[in-house]
């Protein structure tokens, strides 16, 4: 089931939560809405579910306009951030709820409902816990009951609000893989909200990066990570070094670097900011003729496969962080205090008047 959101705007009192959002989720896709808290991602999810009404715009599910359809008629599965399990009902009855409230003509028999619920509990690996009350379950188990409950009504669209937010790191990673498998097995269209970039990049087919009620970028995890469309996305996805400079005559001058300005800034005269990922910085002992910065090694973090090196720019006194492989590190034999030359292998320049605060 595809979902198409067009020109959605929503404000709460004076706060503009969403501003002209356009998004198409293809059938069978697993899409992450990623952004900092308050960016509107949960509001967008709730509007798709029908739990919140948009001020403007439309929601179309599988070609049918659902904008004015009540939540209960949309047939979506929704997993709440804090699970929202029915505390007075057993695990089995929680899962069975969606079937029990069906109109009599569509309702399966009691035996069928029970079989179906037990089947779902087996699917989410909670066999034998059907008589427990939700309060007797761990966080990860509750999460899976919430999922089984949402799946009981056989939704074509599954919406998850921060599905792993309240879980331990270990459980989170396990459930993440498990959810991906489930999504693929059941051929659903899924949208989940998260503020955890790692989660979004690992789990989703496509990532929608949101900020201040707007979509900053939509793309595959690789696209948004490797080719961020805006300074915000650069900042939000992974760590990044920032270099201040100017754009002039089609060239960008950033510290002692002089490189060709990006196409969209060729005719601009402005301050500029260059973004470089730590792993895109090469460190060498000598200036090698390429555009380089001079820097001093201030700290080395040599645990793990990647070595993180903190440097201080010789001219601006600003911190630079670089990552290199262990073999390159051993080859260079770096020690704190060394004077080195840093060459960005990839730099992305944006005009500095853009607001890139998070």
């Amino acid at each position, binding site marked *: 089931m595809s979902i198409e959101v067009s020109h959605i705007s929503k404000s709460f009192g004076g706060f503009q939560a969403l501003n002209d959002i356009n998004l198409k989720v293809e059938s069978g896709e697993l899409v992450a809405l990623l952004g900092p808290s308050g960016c509107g991602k949960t509001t967008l999810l709730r509007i798709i*579910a*029908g*739990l919140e009404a948009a001020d403007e715009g439309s929601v179309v599910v599988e070609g049918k306009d659902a904008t004015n359809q*009540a*939540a*209960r*008629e*949309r*047939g*979506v*599965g*929704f997993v*709440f951030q*804090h699970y*929202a*399990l*029915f*505390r*007075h009902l057993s695990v089995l009855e929680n899962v069975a*709820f*969606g079937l*029990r*409230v*069906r109109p009599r003509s569509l309702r399966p028999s009691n035996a069928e409902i029970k079989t179906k619920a037990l089947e779902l509990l087996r699917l989410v690996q909670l066999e034998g816990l059907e008589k427990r*009350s939700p*309060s*007797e379950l761990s966080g990860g188990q509750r999460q899976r009951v919430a999922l089984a*409950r*949402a799946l*009981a*009504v056989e939704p074509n669209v599954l919406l998850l609000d921060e599905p792993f937010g309240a879980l331990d790191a270990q459980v989170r990673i396990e459930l993440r893989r498990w959810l991906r498998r489930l999504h693929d097995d059941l051929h659903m269209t899924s949208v989940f909200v998260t503020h955890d970039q790692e989660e979004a990049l690992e789990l989703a087919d496509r990532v929608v990066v949101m900020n201040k009620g707007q979509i900053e970028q939509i793309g595959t995890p690789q696209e948004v990570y490797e080719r961020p469309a805006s300074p915000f996305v650069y900042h939000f996805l992974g760590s990044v070094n920032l270099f201040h400079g100017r754009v002039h005559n089609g060239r960008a001058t950033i510290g002692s670097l002089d490189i060709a300005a990006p196409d969209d800034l060729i005719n601009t005269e402005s301050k500029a900011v260059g973004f470089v990922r730590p792993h895109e910085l090469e460190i060498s002992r000598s200036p090698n003729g390429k555009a380089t910065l001079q820097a001093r090694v201030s700290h080395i973090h040599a645990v793990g496969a990647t070595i993180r090196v903190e440097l201080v720019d010789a001219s601006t006194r600003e911190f630079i962080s670089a990552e290199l492989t262990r073999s390159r590190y051993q080859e260079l034999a770096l020690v704190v205090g060394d004077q080195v030359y840093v060459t960005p292998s990839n730099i992305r320049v944006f005009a500095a008047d853009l607001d890139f605060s998070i």
Partner: protein
Amino acid sequence: MSTVRPITASTTEPAWVRRLLIAAVLLLVMVMLILPLCAVFQQAFENGAAAYWAAIRDDDSVAAIKLTLLIAAIAVPLNLVFGVAAAWAITKFDFPLKNLLSTLIDLPFAVSPVISGLIFVLLFGRRGYFGPWLENHNIAIVFALPGMVLATVFVTFPFVARELIPVMQSLGRDEEQAAIVLGATGWQTFWRISLPNIRWGLLYAVILCNARAMGEFGAVSVVSGHVAGLNNTIPLQVELFYDDYNFSGAFALASVLAMLGVVTLILKKLIEWRTGIRADA
């Protein structure tokens, strides 16, 4: 470090302070609550059990007990519905003047019951706003059952809403929204999710509301006609007996009310115990 002192010593008051406070409270409870309660029963049975039964089976007493139960039977369900609706509106929706409504719910607690009774006389009495119209249509409100029910409803209005608002606030809306997304209608959501979640709070509120409805004196006194056997509730009849120097009658009837109160408290305690168990689970 020769002696091991109990760790509690640093976190609690000295023993003599604790003992003094506990003794003071126990004394107060004895003098103000237990003794009067015992006195009621002692006075009621002063002339023997036979006199006690006779006093209770007195026509006026029986009429008063019946009227009290009738008023409670009407007022409590009304307040149950009003209270749930008010708590629902305040906790689940945002609307203008919500704070004002929340404050107004407490009004009956804030004003004297006598005034609560008087406002109904002012509205529906012979010289009240609706008095002439009611008289023309032969509808009796004041000095009749409807007025007494109205006064009781007014006085006991806050019990249910006040009890439910914090319960509903702490529950939030998530479970109901989950039910709706799963396809439940508003009605199904209410009966299957909302109501079961507030059932203990609601029962507790109803018990308190009922205790007050049966015991209310001031407001009901103003709108009652004080005709024995016709529109006297138990509290009013107790006063009437007392004024007539019929002490055994007064105390016998008072003991019935006191008994209802004690039963109420036991029920309340049972519910607290029950919900306590659930909360621990």
